[in-house]
């Protein structure tokens, strides 16, 4: 490394001794700074792990340490790289920028797919190699069969209702003077957690007509006994629908927003021309709007399908995955964490992964068509 070490360096004549001293000082500094950074960060971590201080102080330290720590790591590693020569800098700097992200992605998502697959080939205690036996079990287990059926219900009803309701709301709002207010209110549940949504709807579905609004209406209208909407044997498997409604309620704002933007993107002349030619509103809707926003409909449906494949919170909190409401994700949790069967649980996770692979391939194909990555 004989090249000037710093961009701001000017070519000054210097004695060889001074040169060597600054060189050694630089190396020491380059090692020293990262080491000190690491020690400071590690001290912060051990403090937080064993902290008995007041919660508020821990909160503040934790937030500062977490956010500041990452910023510091970037600063220091960049400082280190910029101390290198031009040639090395341009070689290393991209890795300072991209490296951490790639490292984390590989650790948290890429490697786990392989590792989980590996574990899925072993028995419950991760000791004996059993080959594909866990997969055989997954596809022959009665509980799993119910879970697959339920997930299918989630996908079909979830996607259909999201598209239909989202489209309906978007079209209605587009023609109303109260568009902004209406959209905001429909949008609101998107800020609510699945657990919160589960509490809200648990109350609405409550068997006691003095608590549960649905039963209050139902008993008043029909004069019949109240029904446990998410549990009752006589309405299975349709009790799943009452769980699906919760997801629709929470996520309708997403479909509405996308459809609303798509509808506003339809050229006005196109609609006008159709109306002049004598098309009524229904024809305009089905013959012009729907084909025009077909891409958005596919996007919304795909998103909902991916989302519902992994649905967990709503089912887990509402019914504890009992009453034949289990889905793939709750079976995974139950097998891996409750039954402690790591091989079987991992096999279920791999099944989930396989289910999303078509979407993954589609995304990668889209990427190939993008300009930036030719």
């Amino acid at each position: 490394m004989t090249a000037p070490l710093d961009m701001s360096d000017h070519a000054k004549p210097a004695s060889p001794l001074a040169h060597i001293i600054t060189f050694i000082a630089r190396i020491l500094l380059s090692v020293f700074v990262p080491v000190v950074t690491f020690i400071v960060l590690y001290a912060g971590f051990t403090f937080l792990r064993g902290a008995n201080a007041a919660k508020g102080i821990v909160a503040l330290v934790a937030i500062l340490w977490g956010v500041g720590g990452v910023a510091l790591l970037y600063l220091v590693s960049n400082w280190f790289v910029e101390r290198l020569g031009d040639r090395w800098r341009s070689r290393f700097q991209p890795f300072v920028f991209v490296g951490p992200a790639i490292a984390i992605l590989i650790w948290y998502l890429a490697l786990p797919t392989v590792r989980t697959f590996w574990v899925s080939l072993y028995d419950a205690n991760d000791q004996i190699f059993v080959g594909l036996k866990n997969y055989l079990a997954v596809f022959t287990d009665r509980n799993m069969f119910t879970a697959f059926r339920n997930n299918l219900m989630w996908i079909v009803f979830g996607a259909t209702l999201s598209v239909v309701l989202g489209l309906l709301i978007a079209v209605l709002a587009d023609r109303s003077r109260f568009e902004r207010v209406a959209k905001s209110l429909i949008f609101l549940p998107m800020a609510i957690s699945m657990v919160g949504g589960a509490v809200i709807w648990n109350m609405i579905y409550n068997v006691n007509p003095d608590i549960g609004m649905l039963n209050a209406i139902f008993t008043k209208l029909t004069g019949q006994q109240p029904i446990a909407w998410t549990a009752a044997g006589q309405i299975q498997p349709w009790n799943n629908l009452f769980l699906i409604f919760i997801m629709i309620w929470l996520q309708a704002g997403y479909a509405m927003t996308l459809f609303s933007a798509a509808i506003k993107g339809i050229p006005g002349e196109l609609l006008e021309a159709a109306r002049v030619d004598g098309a009524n509103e229904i024809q305009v809707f089905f013959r012009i709007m729907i084909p025009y926003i077909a891409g958005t409909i596919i996007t919304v449906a795909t998103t909902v399908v991916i989302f519902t494949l992994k649905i967990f919170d709503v089912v887990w909190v509402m019914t504890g995955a009992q009453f034949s409401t289990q889905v793939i994700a709750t079976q995974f949790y139950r097998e891996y964490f409750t039954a402690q069967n790591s091989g079987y649980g991992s096999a279920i996770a791999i099944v989930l992964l396989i289910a999303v692979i078509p979407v993954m391939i589609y995304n990668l194909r889209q990427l190939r068509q993008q300009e930036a990555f030719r």
Partner: protein
Amino acid sequence: MTAKTISAKRRQLGSDVLVNGLLLLLVLAWTIPTVGLLVSSFRSRFDIQTSGWWTIFPHKEWVKVEEFAPAADLNRDGVMNIRGAQGTFEQFRNGVMTPDGKYRVTWVGNKRLGTIQLQQQHWATSLNFTLDNYSQVLGGKTFQIRQPDGTIQTVPGDDFSGAFLNSLIVTIPATVIPILIAAFAAYGFAWMRFAGRRLAFVLVVALLVVPLQIAFVPILKDYKTLDLNGTFLGIWLAHTGFGLPLATYLLFNYISSLPRDILESAFIDGASHFTIFQHLIFPLSIPALASFAIFQFLWVWNDYLVALIFLGSSSNNKVLTMRLAEMVGSRGNDWHLLTSGAFVSMLLPLIVFFSLQRFFVRGLLAGSVKG
């Protein structure tokens, strides 16, 4: 005005009413559940158990006008006549109207010892609101409530305030860290040339839809070795890992679309990549950063599964969603606590959401789909 324009106007009005009426119906269906929760959270335990939250609106209610013991010679197993109303015991249990339609005669209690009430319908509202639910839910150690009969009862609090702090500790770094890392990466992908750039980006896109479940088993194993289970650092890193593909992808799309010449002129002026990133690209990307920040904030704050898995082993670090879900499991009929607890957990996201809705919508439209 010709007849034609009048009929066209009438049709216009008719479709206006139809559109707005339908929309109102949908909006009500979407709003009422939340309103019900909010109202219930301010009602006492007794009120919630005995009357629906909708009774806060004016409604007709049967009010007792007179109460008396049934006559001793009444044939309680056959058809009885009380104040002109005819019926069996079972019918009187549900209430029988007097022939003049003025009163309802209702048997209260069991057949042998019960009394008879004469009731009349009156307009009523039940507007008894209280903050007790919130003090109990938020309170840390123990908490005292006044019972309807005046006695004081000491009950354990649910420490939602502690859980609220935990949620903050988890959410803020778990929002900022992935943004920081993703912004650097997005800049690198957009403006630097290096070996493996394409492959690395393919990895990002491929991981967009990978289900989280795939990661739990191996990451838990690593955390056990690193002693990270139940720590905040552990969950920050987990949320960072799971949020990174989307964050990098979104920010890359934004940063790569910034005009090339600003960068080039900065380079000519001798600025380094880091300086350009810090002083030029980062400030310019604020809209995209804000969009993703809101996304990640809501996602982490509302997350239950990741918290359950990586913080489940710790009793001190539980976040709001975990506490709430536990409460549903263990005290599923304490609606006064569930409703107020749920509202505490919703408060911050609702504020963030309403103040920054613009950015959120923009993020949605930019293709924010989380794996």
